[in-house]
């Protein structure tokens, strides 16, 4: 495995061995290749054809084919399911598997053509790079967060005054149902999956997830799921709450069908991701990464993924049963047909309580990372925190019926459910106390990520304690289904999950984007969120104690003042998100360049460049210690071999911090009036495309061209010590120089025995070219591209960089 890995990296685009035959890149028509155009037509084609067949069968069997609620339900069910499947097919999730299935020779086992983002467009395509998928997840889920937030503002607008003013009670029920559904299934759960997608493989020292194509499919299932939920507003939204309790869900309008189907796709996405994480974490840890050396975020995702795999099929089942009740009249939950109403709640909560931990454990993992790193101390009680994570996961499956203390079950059954529920407070408390103990005597850097982590501790203790209240049966009987519960879940899911998501986004933002966010705006965002979050949800506890029920459009006028204040605070809380959005978008585009390791962290994701190279690690890292050994002299978590020294890797090489001098040099360097172009190429140096590119630059004005052919790695391990190769390169270079001179361009060149990055940067330092042309083989075969050469030069050289692709084709020059 390691050998294959090395060989691939040492390739630098040389066609090593026989595995990498030339790929004929046939660009099929946009209608036929995986694209948004194909996604749209295939999805609607699938949807209409299958719905049409269903209508035809109904007609043949003598049922009303297209009119009436019953027909609508059936046609919608088939239509939506196949529309969503058609979308994933059309966008291209299945292309590779399909090629494999039919034995097409186009598909290579090691096909990395869909791996990595080379331009912003790649983020809108099916991509197998876990880092791209992670960012796709985070951006998409954040859009759903904004939509879900807007729905919540609609709810608060209606509740600002008693009585019904803005929306009808039916629409109101739809608003809060869709709000919760989007927030849970399309924001919190998948955004944790997104963060973990980006971070976990890096933390493990892996090149990617275990199943990159399944990973892409997981992501692309989310969009149809979200659109299905939102589309329900076109026919009257689902309005039975995100809990979709039967038999209300059996009887309510057509919108509920959208809910039952949307959940299937969101759930399938979740399960596929969880399987992927389990396999990745168990099998793809770098050498030396024992379980007890895994960062706590990895532990958290291990536990979470187990919960998802075991639990999520239950909600899928419960919604299938509702769907079957609705369209097939199965009577699962219809007592008149022998069904059992409370059965629904047992199945539903058997998933949906563990779901609370699915929405919380990854957050705990993030907090452990952020607190240890930003307070510069080893996490306090690493093993106990890891154990408590597992304990929460296990106990999480034994407590579901605490949601049902007033639903009607054997009275004695409530007692053990209360006991197990309260026991969960113990591992949760262990975490809280351990975090505070980690802070003690540390060196606390109040970065925005840290502020959210500290704010989280405060809000989550409140949410945890109100959870204990709700576990104590007599108190629960009093306050269940009141605003006390609304306050509790928001303290857990907003003060808990959302705060941790923010902490995670700020913490890993430099790693993901290669840029720093604005701390001042970040702090502003934190304080606005923290203050208005508490101002919005704290008073809801009191409303609940006073007897204001949840899920009501209208309420007792004596709660008017408080509700008005809550609504104002909720609007301001919503507005605070705009600060975040501005900061993130602006910093992503224009923020200062981030060093590889701005937080001086030890875990593996910080030991590679920001953003990481396309295949993460040049060699599998060797893990030699724990991930949080701050303050231990000379302690290392892992030894990472980076083939090109990375100037941004400031922590290890202080010499490279002398950037300002280089900038002064830049102004002095521009003494010559003639434009100076630096051309970097190795195998492709004689390529026509490259020559053409240089000629077109030279048309119009005089230019001076320097061509360099970097050939080697500095590590010495993979030195190309083949005189023939060197001579062939020299010959190619000379031919190129001749052709350029023939075209009247002043050209010089040399073969350099160095790695491309340092060769380019040295040339940039010493000779101050005005622009750079980098010439490489096509994406799938280029070692330089795989290691982000173009991006990194573009990033660090701060002069225009043009990338030319030369397909040397079936006859790789150099003849190796």
């Amino acid at each position: 495995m390691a050998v294959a890995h090395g060989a691939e990296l040492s390739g630098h685009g040389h066609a090593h061995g026989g595995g990498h035959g030339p790929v004929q890149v046939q660009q099929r028509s946009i209608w036929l290749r995986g694209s948004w155009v194909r996604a749209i037509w295939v999805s609607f084609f699938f949807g209409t054809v299958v719905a049409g067949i269903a209508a035809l069968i109904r007609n043949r069997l003598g049922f009303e084919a297209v009119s009436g609620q019953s027909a609508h339900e059936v046609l919608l069910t088939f239509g939506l399911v196949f529309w969503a499947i058609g979308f994933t097919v059309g966008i291209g999730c299945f292309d590779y598997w399909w090629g494999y299935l039919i034995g097409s020779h186009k598909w290579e086992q090691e096909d990395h053509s869909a791996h990595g983002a080379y331009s912003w467009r790649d983020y809108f395509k099916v991509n197998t790079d876990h880092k791209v998928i992670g960012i796709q997840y985070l951006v998409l889920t954040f859009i759903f967060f904004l939509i879900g937030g807007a729905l919540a503002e609609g709810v608060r607008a209606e509740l600002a005054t008693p009585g019904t003013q803005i929306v009808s009670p039916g629409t109101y029920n739809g608003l809060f149902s869709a709000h919760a559904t989007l927030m849970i299934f399309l924001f919190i759960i998948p955004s944790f999956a997104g963060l973990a997608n980006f971070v976990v493989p890096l933390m493990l020292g892996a090149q990617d997830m275990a199943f990159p194509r399944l990973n892409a499919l997981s992501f692309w299932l989310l969009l149809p799921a979200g659109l299905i939920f939102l589309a329900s507003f076109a026919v009257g939204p689902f309005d039975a709450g995100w809990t979709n309790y039967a038999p209300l869900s059996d009887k309510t309008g057509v919108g509920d069908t959208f809910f039952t189907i949307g959940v299937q796709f969101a759930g399938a996405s979740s399960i596929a991701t969880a399987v992927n994480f389990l396999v990745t974490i168990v099998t793809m840890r770098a050498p030396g990464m024992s379980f007890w050396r895994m960062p706590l975020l990895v532990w958290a995702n291990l536990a979470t993924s187990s919960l998802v795999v075991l639990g999520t099929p239950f909600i899928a089942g419960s919604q299938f049963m509702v769907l079957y009740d609705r369209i097939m009249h199965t009577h699962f939950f219809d007592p008149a047909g022998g069904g059992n109403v409370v059965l629904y709640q047992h199945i539903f909560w058997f998933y949906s309580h563990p779901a609370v931990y699915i929405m919380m454990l990854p957050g705990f993992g993030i907090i452990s990372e952020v607190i240890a790193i930003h307070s510069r101390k080893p996490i306090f009680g690493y093993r106990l925190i890891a154990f408590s994570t597992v304990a929460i996961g296990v106990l999480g499956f034994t407590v579901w019926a605490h949601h049902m203390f007033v639903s009607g079950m054997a009275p004695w059954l409530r007692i053990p459910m209360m006991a197990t529920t309260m026991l969960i407070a113990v591992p949760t408390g262990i975490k809280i106390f351990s975090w505070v103990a980690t802070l003690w005597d540390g060196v606390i850097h109040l970065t925005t990520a840290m502020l959210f982590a500290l704010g989280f501790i405060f809000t989550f203790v409140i949410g945890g304690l109100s959870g204990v209240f709700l576990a104590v049966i007599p108190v629960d009987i009093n306050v269940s289904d009141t605003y006390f519960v609304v306050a509790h879940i928001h303290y857990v899911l907003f003060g808990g999950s959302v705060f941790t998501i923010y902490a995670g986004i700020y913490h890993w933002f430099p790693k993901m984007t290669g840029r720093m966010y604005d701390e001042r705006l970040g702090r502003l965002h934190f304080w606005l969120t923290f203050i208005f979050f508490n101002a919005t949800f704290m008073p809801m506890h009191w409303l609940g104690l006073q007897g204001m029920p949840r899920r009501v459009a209208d309420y007792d006028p004596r709660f008017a003042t408080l509700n008005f204040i809550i609504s104002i605070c909720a609007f301001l809380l919503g507005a605070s998100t705009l600060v975040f959005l501005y900061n993130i978008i602006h910093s992503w585009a224009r923020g200062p360049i981030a060093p590889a390791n701005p937080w001086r962290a030890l875990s593996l994701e910080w030991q590679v460049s920001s953003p990481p190279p396309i295949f993460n690690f040049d060699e599998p890292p060797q893990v030699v210690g724990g991930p949080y050994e701050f303050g231990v002299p000379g302690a290392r978590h892992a030894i990472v071999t980076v083939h090109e020294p990375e100037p941004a890797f400031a922590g290890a090489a202080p010499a490279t911090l002398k950037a300002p001098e280089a900038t002064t040099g830049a102004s002095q360097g521009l003494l010559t009036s003639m434009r100076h172009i630096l051309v970097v190429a190795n195998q492709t140096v004689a390529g026509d495309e490259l020559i053409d590119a240089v000629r077109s630059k030279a048309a119009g004005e005089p230019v001076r061209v320097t061509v360099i052919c970097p050939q080697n790695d500095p590590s010495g391990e993979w030195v190309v010590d083949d005189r023939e190769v060197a001579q062939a390169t020299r010959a190619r270079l000379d031919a190129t120089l001749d052709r350029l001179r023939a075209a009247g361009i002043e050209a010089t060149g040399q073969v350099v025995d160095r790695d491309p990055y340092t060769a380019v940067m040295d040339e940039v330092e010493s000779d101050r070219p005005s622009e750079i042309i980098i010439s490489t083989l096509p994406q799938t075969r280029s070692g330089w591209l795989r290691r982000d050469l173009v991006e990194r030069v573009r990033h660090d050289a701060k002069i225009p960089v043009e990338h030319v692709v030369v397909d040397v084709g079936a006859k790789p020059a150099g003849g190796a």
Partner: protein
Amino acid sequence: MSAFKVGIVAVVIGAIGSVAILVTPSWFPVAAATQATRQDDLYLALMIMSSFIMAIVTTFLVYAIWKFRARPGDENRDGPPIHGNTTLEIVWTVIPTILVVAFAIAGGVVLVRNEKTYKNELNVHVIGQQFAWTFKYPKQGVTSTTLVLEEGQPTQFDIYSKLHDVIHSFYVPQFRVKADAVPGQVNHTYATPDRVGTYTLICTELCGPGHSLMRAVVRVLPKDKFDAWVAAQKRLQSSTQGGA
């Protein structure tokens, strides 16, 4: 300040918080049943425990942030490499365990006492439907849309929804009791009203567009007035039946 002193400050703050909790005039609407008083006491006990836990966590948190914040010159400094402390870890595992077990026992005791049944208790059938409540008094042979109860009389509510209806939930905030009205099954809840007055029964399970308006009047009457009400209802019903 040593951690021990911070701990003392935290406990003092927790104690002040507890006093504040106890002197707060109204956490709840007026208590109108013996069940309510027991729930309230349990709630206050939980609040006091929470006050101490909240105070301990927050005091240590805020003090640590203030005392150990990075100052200029700390850019490359790390904290001491403390990996844990077995005694502390045992303490904060065992004490919360004891606390939750104690509260689980207290909760169980209150539950059993709140749901105790009596021989001559009043039995009321509570029937939910979209979006109204009906109350049947089987022993008295009375049906009503207002829930009328007798002061001091232990009452068992048999709660259900009509067979083709959806789930509703029976909740009287002043009694602090609640139970779902489920189609196809009978749930029970218990209340011994101990305060004469008029209250509101609120549906607390989402049951459709009319959910927020699905309410009923609850009246608790002294024994003589309750008996008079029953008699009046009987007369009324027999006269309507006679007329039919």
